């Protein structure tokens, strides 16, 4: 049968905003979500490993990471709502079927996230109270494993979303009376593993940069020069591992797993071809920056590395979006869906967004000033 027949009709309501608006917000939202998500994704595994086996500075790093992790996770989950919202607005005909076909697994993300988040708190609160107990370590391990599994399930859903040929395979294998049992996974998709592991490589790199940021900017009197020097060395080494990992997994994805149709389209689109090459090479600039501060963290260099890592993440988000659109558009051109712009809610949202940012800015200024006072005092 023609897999295209499985795509449901477009909403009679029409898109509430032009497709480009939906895509831009999705990409921006995903980039912002990736920053904290990367830090908890690789960071919690680092906390678990160093918190259990580390000594001295490495254990200190685990403790420092764990102290900020509850806030990072909370903000990351919130920032994840934006891409999820715009995925559902623009890509509903692909997102919902994929989720339903792996229903129980997709549903389990919520349960896993609860374990992961409370695991973060168990470790963090124990460390804050000076109790480096077995329970605390257990919390860190549970959390890190849960985050890795969540990543795997996300890779499943988002690879299945664009692999319509696998919809019917999974549906035929796992249905009861024509209804999906929700127990399938997109395991036969060759892009599944490299996609999952590629994001982990990116996460290692972002976490490495965060370690440098933490040592440079969030240190107080308790942070010694020895730790700052160690952090510079460690973040450089960790970033190198992440970079190699990312390069290997990226190569596996591009040369061994990606849909051939995407490669053909890539060759036909010079701008995207260039963006892809820049995306692949961009982490090298961050690596060079971290190389220059491998003896001890330097505020300016760290700031540059952090800013450029954000560029790296943005480029990745753009490239991923292009691939997703290319894969989906071979079945359906989503830009042709009816548009019924909701002007006044859109404008009010944008106004509230700006006001919200100003309020957040004001609150952060107050926090910065309190921090300064504390340092002086």
């Amino acid at each position, binding site marked *: 049968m023609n897999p295209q027949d499985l795509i449901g009709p477009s909403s009679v309501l*029409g898109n509430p905003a032009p497709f480009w608006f939906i895509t831009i917000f999705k990409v921006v939202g995903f980039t912002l979500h990736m920053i904290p998500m990367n830090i908890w994704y690789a960071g919690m595994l680092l906390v678990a490993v160093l918190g259990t086996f580390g000594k001295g500075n490495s254990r200190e790093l685990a403790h420092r990471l764990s102290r900020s992790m509850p806030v990072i996770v*909370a903000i990351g989950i919130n920032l994840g*709502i*934006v891409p999820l*919202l715009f995925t559902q607005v623009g890509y509903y005909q692909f997102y*919902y*079927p994929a989720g339903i076909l792996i229903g129980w697994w997709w549903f389990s*993300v*919520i349960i896993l996230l609860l374990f992961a988040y409370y695991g973060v708190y168990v470790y963090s609160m124990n460390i804050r109270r000076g109790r480096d107990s077995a329970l605390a370590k257990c919390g860190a391990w549970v959390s890190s494993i849960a985050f890795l599994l969540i990543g795997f399930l996300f890779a499943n859903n988002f690879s299945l979303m664009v692999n319509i040929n696998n919809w019917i395979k999974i549906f035929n294998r796992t249905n009861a009376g*024509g209804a999906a049992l929700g127990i399938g996974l997109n395991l036969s998709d060759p892009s599944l593993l490299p996609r999952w592991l590629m994001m982990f490589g990116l996460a290692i790199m972002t976490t490495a940069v965060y370690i440098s940021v933490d040592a440079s900017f969030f240190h107080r009197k308790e942070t010694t020069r020895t730790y700052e020097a160690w952090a510079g060395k460690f973040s450089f080494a960790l970033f190198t591992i992440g970079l190699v990992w990312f390069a290997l997994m990226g190569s596996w994805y591009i040369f061994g797993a990606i849909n051939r149709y995407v490669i053909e389209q890539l060759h036909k689109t010079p701008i995207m071809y260039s963006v892809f090459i820049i995306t692949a090479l961009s982490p090298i600039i961050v690596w060079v920056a971290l190389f220059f501060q491998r003896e001890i963290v330097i505020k300016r260099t760290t700031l540059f590395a952090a800013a450029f890592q954000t560029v790296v993440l943005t480029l990745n988000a753009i490239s991923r979006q292009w691939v997703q659109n290319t894969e989906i558009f071979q079945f359906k051109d989503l830009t042709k869906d009816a548009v019924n712009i909701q002007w006044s809610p859109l404008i009010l949202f944008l106004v509230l967004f700006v006001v919200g940012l100003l309020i957040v800015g004001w609150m952060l200024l107050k926090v910065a000033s309190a921090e300064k006072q504390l340092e002086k005092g």
Partner: protein
Amino acid sequence: MHYPWWYVPGLTAPMLIALIATLHVFVSMYAVGGGIFLATETTYAYKINNKLLLEYLRSQALFFILITVVFGAITGVGIWWTIGLTSPLATESLIHIFVFGWAMEYVFFVLEIISAFIFYYYWGRLDSKTHIKIGWIYAISAWMSLVLITGITAFQLDIGNWTPQKGMWIAFFNPQTFPQIIARTGASLMLAALYVFLHSSFRLSKDIALKKLIGTRVAKWGMVGAVLVTLGGLWWYLALPQSGKAALSGASALNILTLIIFTSSVVVFFMLYLGPYRNPDWVSPGFAIMFFLLGIAATGTGEFIRESTRKPYIIYNYVLGNNILVSEVPRLHSTGFLNGGSWTRAFMKAHYPQVFDKNGDIDNGKLLQLPDKDQAKVGEVIFQYHCNDCHSQVGFSAVSDLTRGWTEEMIKTVIIHLDAAHFFMPPWSGTTEEAMLLAKYLKSLSLPHPAGMRYSSARLPDSLDLSFEKRRN
């Protein structure tokens, strides 16, 4: 139909929403009421310079964050997750109507999270004025989230003057929005008071004076909440569409539950007045736990009633409970239910290609030429997509029980006149042939009439014609 249906044996997939949503409501209401409590009490504590009260509020803020920011936020996202899995068409529609409403809620949500963390983690490090302001930023943001999400859920119960051509605001300001905002604000205050009693009864077991101070002040909030719940609830009832009122008066269980909710709000008011307000030292851990459980039960029941009055719709007059657009029903009567959905068609094509005609459509006549066993199997497909949103085969609201002792002909008659027989059920959305197949499948599940009941053996006189068609005409 247009999306694959998720089969959750024994329970039905939408019950997973009920599970997650109920858990979320218990916490999200505390997130709103507790935020207002923390903002007002911190303001008060700074004003009278009561350090002990401030210290207590700090511990309450940690308790608050651990419950609301973690569990509340995840179950909130969990509702989204689950509605997309179990009611994709309704979710798709809601998202297209309210995407910017949700985006606005998101802005407030971000403000909530950031202000909550700063409020707690910078306690004692910010000057009192800034600390108070941040507390109020949280409280206002949380309440605005409540307002926005209530407008959306209220729309599901009554779309008011909205039509697909009209925009979000017409949808948002529907007849149910304001009554529900009042009732939910009240419930948030009431529930927050019960959370605070629970926390303070354990935390302040030795500090009687502080316990009294907190008890008296929180009880006021609780009483205001009980009044708002009662007023909002009454307005909600008066503004209900006819079908909602009929659902309430028609189901004896809902009758009783509604009465319990209104009575318990009044009882809670007097309990708060006589207990924590007049005699704060009464609030022992046992009393607080009992009070808290009562509040949780009342809130859960209230949500259950609210959801029940929406049947047979997910979005009133727009999307039916079984994920069919109301506007699609006439078409499905002529083309057939199986033919009308992408996934039902795909299943039929893969398993019964012989029933398709030259144009690639299902020939309904050919369905009846299938062997009996296959007819029941096709009936099962129709059951999954037409009925399984509310009914399991065996388990929750089981069709095996609901059709106990029915003949195949009775089942078919009820299927064809589904909405006439029960106004809270969606209309039959298929052909007569498909109804026959569904009846065949349901008959195979139907349990026998309970044995030992004497009247069941009495035969009706042959002259008595009780056929549904004639009575309806």
